[in-house]
């Protein structure tokens, strides 16, 4: 039986909570359950009450929110001022929190244009393994003082510290978006489109493809008057069709919410290069119950599979988000220095180890 859930409501209470037990794991809304699936000996600290936007200055292009703030709440506040997080955080609809998204290092289709979550995080307040509440990075859009610990915590799965508060850079939202479904007969054709469209003058906002579907999804943002001409040119070069706004919204919601992946199966993320996408697609199709989504112009692949599938045999580095398989998949390069860095931030191993 695991210990009761601790629910701090302030950064200081989070620090107290971390100090309250010899081994702790901080959890958000649990939308990526495998990341916090650790032994029962860990006390679980939930950020459910550690929520709210602390500061939002639209004129600064920055906001600061407590780690447990649901992405939905943030997206709504930003949209109200015509702004957004360009990397399009994943699982907002499922209730994912800002802190969990940082710890998981997940970015959505929009990461294609301006970069991923790591490119928009500016600063953090976090609790280290000794229970110290530390603020590193900055609260302005540009800062070069001190080591970039905020970036390091992206994708660190909470193994080096518990996030209390995070500052992000935001951008003005494009006035309009259009989505094109470009025909692509096979994986080789998809790769040609990913490569050519990704480097073209159009400055696409997103460039994704669903494994097994004969199409590439391209999204472009900007003033409506410009988009008509741009879309016409793109479709002149790559046959396909424009999606109606609601159909497009449904497609992209499918991507950010993993609507294409069966809830019961395993779900994993892999870092790819565009050239690896045909092989990735073939591998996904070979898995029992395998399905997949390729995003960011071919730089990220998500795979889902039924019970019995061995995702760890993948030839690309990956991480399991859902299901009971190994946490880290494929070839992993953990530097020898990792132990010393873990020790610097969490000397007693209060948070789980990277391999826990």
């Amino acid at each position, binding site marked *: 039986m695991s210990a009761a859930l601790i629910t701090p409501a302030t950064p200081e209470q989070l620090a107290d909570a971390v100090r309250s037990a010899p081994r702790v794991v901080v959890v958000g809304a649990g939308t990526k359950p495998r990341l916090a699936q650790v032994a029962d000996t860990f006390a679980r600290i939930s950020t459910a009450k550690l929520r709210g936007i602390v500061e939002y200055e639209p004129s600064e*292009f920055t906001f600061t929110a407590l780690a447990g703030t649901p992405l939905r709440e943030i997206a709504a506040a930003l949209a109200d001022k015509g702004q957004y997080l360009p990397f399009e955080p994943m699982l907002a609809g499922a209730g994912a929190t800002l802190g969990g998204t940082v710890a998981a290092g997940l970015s959505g289709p929009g990461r294609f244009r301006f970069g991923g979550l790591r490119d928009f995080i500016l600063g953090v307040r976090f609790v280290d393994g000794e229970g110290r509440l530390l603020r*590193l990075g900055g609260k302005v859009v*540009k800062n070069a003082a001190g080591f970039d610990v905020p970036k390091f915590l992206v994708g660190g799965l909470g193994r080096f510290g518990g996030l209390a508060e995070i500052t992000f850079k935001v951008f003005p939202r494009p006035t309009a978006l259009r989505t094109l479904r470009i025909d692509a007969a096979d994986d080789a054709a998809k790769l040609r489109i990913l490569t050519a469209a990704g480097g073209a003058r159009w400055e696409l906002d997103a460039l994704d493809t669903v494994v097994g579907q004969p199409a590439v999804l391209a999204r472009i943002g900007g003033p409506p008057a410009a988009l008509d001409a741009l879309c016409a040119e793109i479709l002149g070069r790559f046959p396909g069709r424009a999606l109606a706004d609601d159909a497009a919204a449904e497609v992209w919601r499918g991507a950010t919410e993993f609507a294409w992946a069966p809830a019961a199966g395993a779900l994993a993320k892999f870092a790819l290069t565009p050239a690896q996408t045909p092989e990735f697609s073939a591998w996904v199709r070979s898995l029992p119950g395998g399905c997949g989504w390729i995003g960011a112009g071919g730089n990220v692949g998500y795979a889902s599979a039924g019970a019995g599938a061995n995702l760890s045999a993948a030839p690309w580095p990956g991480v399991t988000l859902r299901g009971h398989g190994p946490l880290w998949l494929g070839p992993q390069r953990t530097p*020898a220095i990792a132990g010393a860095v873990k020790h610097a931030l969490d000397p007693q191993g209060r948070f789980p180890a990277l391999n826990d």
Partner: protein
Amino acid sequence: MTASAPAPDVVRRLTALLPAGRVLADAAPLAAYESDGLTAFQAKPLAVAMPETQDEVVAIVRFCHAEKLPFVARGSGTSLSGGSLPFAGGIVIALNRLNKIVRLDPAQRIAVVEPGVINLAVTAAAQPHGLHYAPDPSSQSICTIGGNVAFNAGGAHCLKYGMTSNHVLGLKAVLATGEVVEFGGASREQIGPDWTGLFVGNEGLFGVALEITVQLLPRAEVFHTVLAGYRTLEEAGEAVSAVIASGLLPGAIEIMDALALEAASAAVHADYPPACEAVLIVELEGPREVVAVDRVRLDAILAASKPVEVRPARDAAERLAIWKGRKSAFSAVGRLSPDFIVQDGVVPRRRLGEALRKIAGWSRELGVRCANVFHAGDGNLHPLILYDGREAGALERAEEFAGKILRMCVEMGGSITGEHGVGMEKRDYLPDMFNAEELACLKRLRAAFDPHGIANPGKMFPAEGAPALAQHGLHPLEKAGVISRE
């Protein structure tokens, strides 16, 4: 950092690690390495090693680790924060000969480069493929990618495109422990903790990058660059706020004040609107259809902002002229004065007007001239404090002025450095940004990568007995017009 005296035969053994002629230990050639872009500081290294291969760099670092011998990696030595200042009695590892572009893959839009590759050389290699490397520090014609990585260099396009760290996908490095690591890779996505992100901006305190994978971006199809003159700095600042509030996302938003304008017009014969206390430069970029729509909005916003005059660049030559004036402003101002200090603080954008008023007030109060050229879009100030070191008390007044500006930036919720790094110059101000526990955390991280404290010791963290600033003249390369500052 207290380094023990090196063993007497250390230079001989270091020399034996490399082919003949690649370790300098005589006083005359060493003199060229005593300083970097911040000429106020000078230190004599024991020797300068000039490796030509990654294996040689690894061998040198492992040697230094075994000997507990301090080393400083150096590219072109353009650091404005004294980041590549040698450690007295330590080794300088000059990386200029590791200057190969190992791979350029236009299809995946990445380049793999060695640390001694010049920033602009990456864009030059990418250009035939319609691509470019986005970070553009003003010294880009001479600064190296290795130095850019160590100090997370910025440039004029950071608001939209970010800094160096936003463009480095992966790297191979030799840590101060001698361990060779590979972080990240060719993918734009990462799995696991972002080691690459942690390494970029380490100021040389973790180790030496050997090979860097950067992303390349498609070059913007068209630009719309506008120069607008204003009677007051305040009005120029209000125009920036109006542009930001409009929802446009310009590639660059820059301001130059009267003193900077005067210097730039003298230096590069730039012609600015008359009777203006400030000039604003705004640049839109993107597909022609998008820029065509956005420029109408921008032009309307600027027309409503009470400018003295608005001058859109009508062609590529006029655009380049606008940027030439802007990028030469700093060295131009430097020529007005025997000595100067350049600052790099950041304030929240909405407080730019207030910050500039305070700076002007201190300038009057202390009788010290100050020119302002800055990245208005991201609140990154670059006050240039002019003084004459031969005049009694002038340096002290200039330093007092600089200190007031840095503390103001922190009090306003900003940063002591936007893009130059802490280095030597601002290390005593790091405690203004971070409390004792936060500093201790940063130091523990440093110790994890460098337990002996041999990698670029004395930088970033405040130290006892910091050498006093002596002078702040132009870098010799600036005098020659080869490099310029942000």
